[in-house]
């Protein structure tokens, strides 16, 4: 257990709760325990997760699942759709897709990566990165970005829109469409749609490259701060192809330790449960996954852009590969561990997604019409793993003979990062909050650390990045001593 996870004499400490006031979908809160002199003794991030879904889908026919589970989330429904689709391919005995269907699924996924990464970077994180963590609340948001850097704001919107357009074309709707069937897809890519997407792709690649340049510049102008902020040493987990390339749709599992050594490699994800277990802690609804061989104390890991760019041996697209090399050069042979480097890695991935979209569109196979593979033998167990925008996403289903779900296990990206996010906020709490009188700017440090991971919480993605918070200071007798409220308009009241 890490330092600051559990204080020794919690009864003598003040409790600070950072909690969003809106309770839509998932939400997170941070609790801090402070002593009389505001020294931090305990810091925890609690996330109310959607475990209900695993129960809810029990008894449902498996072929409904890919469309049903996308409702888990309005933020990355495509990832759930595809992870479930891969599991269902297995159930239907049709794991080997036709080349066209494989391309179309990848295209859909890349559209999701592009729109999600663009949303996160431009709308949610760029205000902190461009204006600084202590910038005035009223200005530290996407409106402020558009006012100060109109081109940038517009590019963010257009990049996101392009990703959504890819999703709409493949799945019929921008959000919650239908696309995958057991063993394939339900619609080929028409030549007109292909032409429509090709028309803008060069611009999208240029803007994505610009976004990498921007984040790199921001990161490197204040290198020391960016490297130290929320810095933790962690293992990293992601999918890679058989020759070690980054792949977001399919591959084997690779885990590296904090010093860059390989823990396991090219593991068939169907055996994930032999390598990853989940620990339950009494204070959190969300489980804490860890690598079995390392044990629960130190076996936790990070997933998502940072892990993927660190873990892979190379990226298949030329521009993103150049960026990867430069990124990795900052690690002196090890792994880049800075939490804020997530933003940089995320933009390299966005560039990769844009380049890959062009490759797939130019591949004549993509407009083929052979899009459904026939299943052969059936399985009663289906496992689908995908690299969602936020990291490795695992869907695991057991069905009975009549084809309905007996049991489901979903390990979502944000769960994979649970311990790491906790570690990061502890680091930030000690470094910036310890012994200080709390201010909104200081509390925003906590949010910035959480936001680096782009967790899938409605609070982290709340309208225009203004997370509504109430912070209460309660003394050890439970009496409220201080209270700070930030409304969603950014107004602070005592």
């Amino acid at each position, binding site marked *: 257990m890490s330092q600051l996870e559990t204080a020794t004499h919690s009864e003598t400490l003040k409790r600070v709760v950072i909690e969003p006031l809106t309770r839509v979908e998932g939400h997170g809160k941070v609790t801090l325990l402070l002593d009389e002199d505001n020294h931090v003794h305990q810091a925890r991030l609690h996330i109310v997760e959607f475990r209900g879904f695993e129960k809810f889908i029990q008894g449902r026919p498996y*072929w409904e699942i890919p*469309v049903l589970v996308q409702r888990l989330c309005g933020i990355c429904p495509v990832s759930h759709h595809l992870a479930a689709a891969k599991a269902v391919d297995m159930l239907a005995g049709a794991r080997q897709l036709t080349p066209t269907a494989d391309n179309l699924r990848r295209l859909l996924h890349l559209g999701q990566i592009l729109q999600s990464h663009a949303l996160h970077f431009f709308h949610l994180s760029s205000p902190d990165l461009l204006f600084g963590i202590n910038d005035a609340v009223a200005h530290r948001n996407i409106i402020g970005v558009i006012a100060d850097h109109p081109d940038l704001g517009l590019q963010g919107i257009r990049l996101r829109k392009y990703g959504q357009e890819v999703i709409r074309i493949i799945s019929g709707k921008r959000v919650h*469409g239908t696309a995958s069937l057991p063993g394939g897809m*339900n619609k080929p890519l028409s030549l007109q749609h292909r032409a429509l997407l090709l028309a803008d792709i060069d611009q999208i690649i240029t803007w994505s490259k610009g976004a990498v340049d921007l984040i790199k510049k921001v990161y490197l102008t204040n290198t020391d701060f960016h490297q130290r902020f929320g810095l933790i040493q962690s293992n990293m987990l992601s999918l890679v192809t058989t020759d070690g390339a980054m792949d977001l749709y399919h591959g084997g599992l690779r885990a590296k330790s904090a010093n860059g050594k390989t823990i396991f490699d090219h593991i068939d994800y169907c055996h994930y449960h032999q390598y990853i277990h989940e620990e339950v802690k009494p204070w959190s609804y969300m489980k804490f996954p860890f690598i079995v061989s390392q044990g629960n104390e130190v076996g936790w890991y990070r997933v998502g852009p940072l892990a993927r760019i660190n873990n892979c041996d190379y990226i298949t697209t030329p521009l993103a590969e150049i960026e990867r090399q430069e990124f990795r050069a900052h690690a002196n042979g090890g792994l880049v561990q800075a939490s804020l480097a997530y933003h940089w890695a995320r933009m390299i991935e966005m560039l990769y997604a844009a380049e890959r979209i062009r490759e797939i569109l130019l591949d004549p196979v993509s407009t083929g019409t052979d899009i459904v593979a026939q299943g052969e033998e059936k399985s009663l167990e289906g496992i689908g793993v995908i690299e969602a925008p936020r990291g490795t996403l695992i869907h695991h289903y057991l069905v009975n003979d009549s084809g309905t779900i007996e049991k489901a296990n979903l390990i979502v990206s944000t769960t994979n990062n649970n311990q790491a996010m906790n570690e990061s906020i502890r680091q930030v709490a000690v470094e910036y909050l310890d012994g200080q009188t709390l201010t909104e700017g200081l509390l925003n440090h906590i949010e910035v650390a959480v936001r680096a991971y782009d967790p899938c919480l409605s609070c982290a993605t709340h309208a225009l990045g203004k997370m509504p918070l109430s912070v209460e200071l309660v003394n050890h007798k439970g009496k409220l001593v201080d209270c700070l409220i930030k409304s969603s308009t950014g107004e602070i009241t005592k």
Partner: protein
Amino acid sequence: MQLEEQTITIDGQKIPFQSGQTIMDAALAAKIYIPHLCYHPEFKPHGSCRLCTVMVNGRYESACTMPSVAGQEILNNTKELNENRRALTQMLFVEGNHICPGCPKTGNCQLQAVAYYVGMLSSHYQHFYPYRDLDPSHPDYVVDFNRCILCELCVRASRDVDKKNIFAISGRGIKAHLIINSPSGKLEDTDFAVGDKAAFVCPVGAILRKRTRYTTPIGERLYDKQSIRIVGDSQQLHAGATKYGRK
């Protein structure tokens, strides 16, 4: 001597009918849409959903059971009647568990299409959220009781066409529910088969073929392009067919 053509008038439009035809039959023959869910031209009318209620010479009547009589003055597409239909549709939605986003029949479902037609934007009434099961026991078909609207089309098809009498409605009023006539109450213990008429008549997603789902892309589903007023009933279509994939 030539017989004078018999006519009725619907919303001011004179249409012919043949003796023995109900108002619904005559209207559909004249391409006039009267919203309906439990009516099917091949079966004896049942008159249970009340969606087809029209005003005949100043009185409420169900068009699917009311015989056409020369000279009838009928109001169909009026604000008031459509508002009643909307309320009925909302009640159907709250009484069962109709989760359209997760239902393979979405886009091809007659209940959903009627809801669009009558301009239903919300459920309005409080949901019952009844606890209902699913019967996946049959190798080729699933019966999802959550989606049943008690139209009795499967009951009529199985009894009158298939001569198997597999489905029935049990209980009354709010307790009415679909049952399967077998010792275990399961579909696997009946002789229900893929070619049965009862396998094709369900207007919603309550009786569905197993395994092939969401095969028709969004934009190409039955009610994606045109309203049910023009397209007609969903039974013509069996979910699972696609121009690209397998059946």
